[in-house]
């Protein structure tokens, strides 16, 4: 595969029509909330873009992020765009293995030093470097070495972005996110467990055309993570009306009412699920009747249970109230007895004043 071909040339070679290409650019512009005037700009920038070298490192992960990306509709233009980047190293997808695979990574890094995009999925163990290694190289070492020559790092998935499931309590491997280790490179977090495929390609398109997109405080692109699931949820009117499903098979659930009471984390979760949806816009968890788990947020695994609403106390409060009431009655009765004793004592000490006493005093 020639690496000096532009993306436009490559697409034409693959038989993608100009019309199909512009449709993709228009879809991307609307996805990124850019004005329609930006469509030609995106097209021009993408046309001229050389296939950027992408090195994809997989650390403590489940391959769900890669699955999410590769299981998106195989014939989509996004998929072709992804084919059109030069994915020089991805140990799940590449044919080479062993020394050959590592050689590919090293030569790609050498040839594109300072220019390649480093994509990371999975968290990095710090408790013991031996917990996760690739070709005998610990994850920390490989990340540090690859990050040094990267133009930017894209952390794909909640593990790479925030530590994810390996980072969940008690975090036996001392798992950390990419941004915990790398401080001197631009990092884009594309969180989610897994992230939405179109968000991954959208972020990449933005990076190729306009550079680093506008990010929120968690380094996530605002275009996709700027609004909460709750704000964009088609069940929101039911929340506002106070109509909730109480269980997974009650009348409310059948009528499609709000899933807040079943533990939906939509109000505190920022992602594009409610708008872009999954499986080519077919559906998303809430639409299929399940509350949002909040997978694109830090520590979503430890947020007090998937099926408990966010505002609910985690302890056994009924028991606390019961014991508290018993202790309160005990303490109250004891204090009351003490006061009564004091009162009785005061009455006992009271001496009656007679006329004679007054005369004596006078």
């Amino acid at each position, binding site marked *: 595969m020639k690496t000096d071909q532009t993306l436009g040339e490559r697409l034409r070679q693959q038989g993608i029509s100009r019309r199909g290409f512009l449709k993709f650019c228009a879809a991307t512009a609307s996805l990124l909330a850019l004005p329609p005037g930006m469509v030609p700009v995106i097209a021009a920038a993408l046309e001229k873009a050389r296939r950027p070298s992408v090195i994809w490192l997989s650390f403590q992960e489940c391959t769900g992020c890669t699955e999410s990306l590769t299981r998106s509709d195989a014939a989509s233009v996004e998929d072709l765009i992804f084919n059109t980047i030069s994915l020089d190293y991805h140990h799940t997808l590449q044919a080479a293995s062993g020394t050959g695979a590592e050689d590919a990574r090293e030569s790609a890094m050498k040839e594109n030093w300072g220019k390649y995009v480093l994509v990371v999925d999975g968290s990095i163990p710090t408790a013991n470097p031996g917990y996760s290694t690739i070709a005998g190289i610990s994850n920390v070492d490989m990340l540090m070495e690859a990050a040094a020559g990267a133009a930017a790092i894209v952390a794909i998935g909640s593990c790479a972005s925030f530590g994810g499931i390996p980072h969940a309590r008690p975090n036996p491997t001392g798992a950390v996110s990419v941004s915990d280790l790398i401080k001197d490179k631009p990092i884009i977090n594309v969180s989610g467990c897994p992230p939405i495929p179109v968000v991954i390609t959208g972020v990449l398109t933005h990076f190729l055309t306009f550079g680093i997109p506008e990010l929120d405080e968690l380094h996530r692109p605002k275009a996709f993570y700027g609004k909460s699931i709750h704000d964009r949820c088609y069940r929101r009117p039911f929340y506002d*009306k106070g109509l909730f499903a109480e269980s997974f098979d009650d009348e409310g659930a059948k009528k499609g009412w709000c899933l807040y009471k079943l533990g939906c984390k939509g*109000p505190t979760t920022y992602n594009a699920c409610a708008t872009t949806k999954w499986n080519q816009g077919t559906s998303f968890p809430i639409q299929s009747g399940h509350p949002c788990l909040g997978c694109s947020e830090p520590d979503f695994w430890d947020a007090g249970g998937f099926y408990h609403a966010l505002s609910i*106390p985690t*302890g056994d409060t009924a028991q606390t109230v019961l014991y508290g009431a018993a202790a309160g*009655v005990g303490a109250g*009765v004891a204090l009351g007895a003490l006061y009564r004793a004091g009162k009785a004592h005061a009455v006992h000490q009271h001496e009656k004043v007679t006329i004679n006493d007054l005369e004596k005093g006078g």
Partner: protein
Amino acid sequence: MTETEFLLWVRGPAFQIATVIFVVGSIVRILEIMILGRKPNLAEARGSAVAGGLRTIITRSWPDRGTFKRSAVTLVSGYVFHAGLFVTILLFAPHILVIDEVLGISWPALPTPLVDATTVITIIALVVVLLHRIKDPVLRFLSRFQDYFVWFLTILPVITGYVAFHRIGLPPPTLIAIHILSVELLMIAFPFTKLAHAFTLFISRWYNGAIAGYRGVNS
């Protein structure tokens, strides 16, 4: 401490601590009053103490025309913020969910936009109450630190709740955590400050009416 850990601490240990202090404190304060008792009244009853007590609980909850003329601001803003607190605390869906989880009882919620509007009205009424307290020379003279402190503890959960609902400024889990924490502060202070009037007002009104009723006075 990450924002999720903060929220979990607030929902977990902190809420349990606040609940213990609130429950133990409230019961102790009420029992203190009840057990202290009164001397037996040897005078012959000319009316019913029970009827008088109940009647006064009701009649004193309704302002008479004289009070309204004397202190219309206190009366109107006082009623508005108390009613507002009732609506925002007890008729907001997520709050009912908490009560259901803790006590196992629930009731229908009001539509969220209605509760949202009530919150704004409640905040305005509470601000009016404070301004009136500061501006009125008599009220200012009578006010001590605790009066301003309990005002602050009362308005804090309303404001943090409004901010958390509209997710202004901070990450949502942090906003919810701050809101719950402000309620926990209120719960802890409740039995030991003037806020305890929520319980004691019924005792004192009952007592006033009961004495009058016992002696046959039309209270």
